[in-house]
């Protein structure tokens, strides 16, 4: 620990329709930290994660990652930065009709030339590596099944495998368990946490469930109305803080 992986300064995001989603967010994350972000609906959690890899363009601010400012990166540089950032989505976002292992191989596209990647010419080593990662998330049996033949929890584990295959420094997971039942949720969170420990990458996870946050997080960040409202350990997150975080009182902007 100790090495800073992401350093965010005064990040702002205003959507074209005028919605102010992020207000001057500044924070640092260290190598290997498992950070859970909580907050009421519409607080800006998704916008925050999506601004980090610029799926959503920040309005202003600085995001330092691997010595570069992501906000200012050109097209090519952004691709290089993005391959070091894995992303996991609520809806899994796998290519449904392709085999599981091919979906995992997609994690390598950021490292491949245009033609090789386009035609899916992955070499033997890459295929073996992908199969190895699938084994680690307990899916070696499903490697050659179509992705949409898997259960939701299994599909999310494929998505985790795809992200691991990027050899990332950072993983962003936007409500990875929101569409799963409690059992699969636990399995997915366990694998994610385990991968974070083994690979040493930093993880940001948006969650709705405060109990899960307390259980898994090294550090919890509470976002409210586009601002960081709380930043601390699970023990610091008292019931009063939780209530204030989720209370609607001062939300003049909402609705």
């Amino acid at each position, binding site marked *: 620990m100790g090495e800073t992986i992401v350093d965010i300064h005064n990040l702002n995001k205003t959507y074209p329709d005028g919605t102010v989603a992020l207000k001057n967010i500044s924070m640092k994350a260290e190598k290997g930290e498992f950070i859970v972000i909580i907050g009421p609906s519409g607080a800006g959690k998704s916008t925050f994660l999506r601004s980090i890899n610029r799926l959503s363009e920040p309005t202003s601010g600085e995001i330092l990652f691997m010595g570069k400012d992501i906000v200012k990166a050109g097209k090519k540089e952004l691709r290089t930065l993005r391959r070091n950032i894995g992303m996991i989505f609520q809806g899994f976002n796998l290519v449904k*009709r392709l085999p599981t292992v091919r979906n995992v191989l997609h994690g390598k596209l950021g490292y491949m030339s245009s033609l090789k990647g386009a035609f899916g010419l992955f070499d033997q080593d890459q295929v073996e590596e992908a199969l190895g990662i699938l084994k680690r998330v307990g899916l070696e049996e499903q490697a050659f099944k179509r992705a949409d033949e898997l259960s939701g929890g299994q599909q999310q584990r494929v998505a985790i495998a795809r992200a691991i295959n990027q050899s990332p420094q950072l993983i962003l997971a936007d409500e990875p368990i929101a569409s799963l039942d409690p059992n699969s949720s636990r399995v997915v969170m366990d694998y994610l946490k385990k991968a974070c420990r083994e690979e040493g990458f930093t993880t940001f996870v948006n969650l709705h469930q405060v109990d899960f946050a307390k259980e898994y997080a090294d550090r919890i960040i509470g976002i409210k109305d586009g601002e960081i409202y709380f930043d601390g350990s699970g023990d610091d997150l008292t019931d009063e803080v939780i209530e204030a975080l989720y209370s609607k009182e001062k939300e003049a902007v909402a609705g």
Partner: protein
Amino acid sequence: MKQSKMAKIEKKKFRNTLYAVLAFAFFIFSMLQLNIVPERLIQSADRLAYVFGGMFPPVLNEPLDVFGAAVESIQVAILGTIIGVIVSFVLAVFAARNLAPSKTLSFAIKSFAGFVRAVPALIWALLFIVAVGLGPTPGILALAINSIGMLVKVYAEALEEIDMGVVEALESAGASKLHVIMQGVIPSMLSAFIAWSLFRLDVNIRYSAILGVVGAGGIGWELVKAAQMSRYDEALMVTMVIFLMVMSAEVISEFMKKRANSATAQAVK
């Protein structure tokens, strides 16, 4: 309330009668103007009987020519379809609202396709005959461009329906635009792509039989030749060959569609 409703119905009735009368008047007027009078119709029935009589039994005088022409028709259809499919897909990527780099470009390509679609294949064939001369080349070009008119539209619609989450997932992994399209987008719309392409091949085989009539290569020309020499028996034979050609094209494309479906179902194992 009720009264006004009744009045409305009355009014509608009157208007419908008026339309019917006008349509009938126009029909009579057209018959007279085009000189289609009853005695001519009766005469033409005589003539038709004569033509039909001349058709039987159908004969094949120059089998090599006819079958050669049939094969040429099929080649024209296949080449026109392949060119059309490739160009259409590239254009469709820039026309689909969710993938296009700019709204203006998307609109421009869709309008272009709409215009191309509005011009019939035969007209394109005539235009290309003027441009490149007689033979199969104008036929291929005409079918290719006519296919583009339709395929850009249906491909773009299929592209607009794909799950954008897949695009985001691959982009966020650092994939290039080409990677995203080849690895994410195409597999997601493959069955629609194959179905439309085969459907278009089917349509093009029908068209390619007709294109020869204006001199754009293929079997249509054999039909014109036979008719001009009043060899109705030969004309019937050529027609039967065309029928066979179109039927087998339909059977084959149906078969390929089924195979493609089961193949993609098993995925690229």
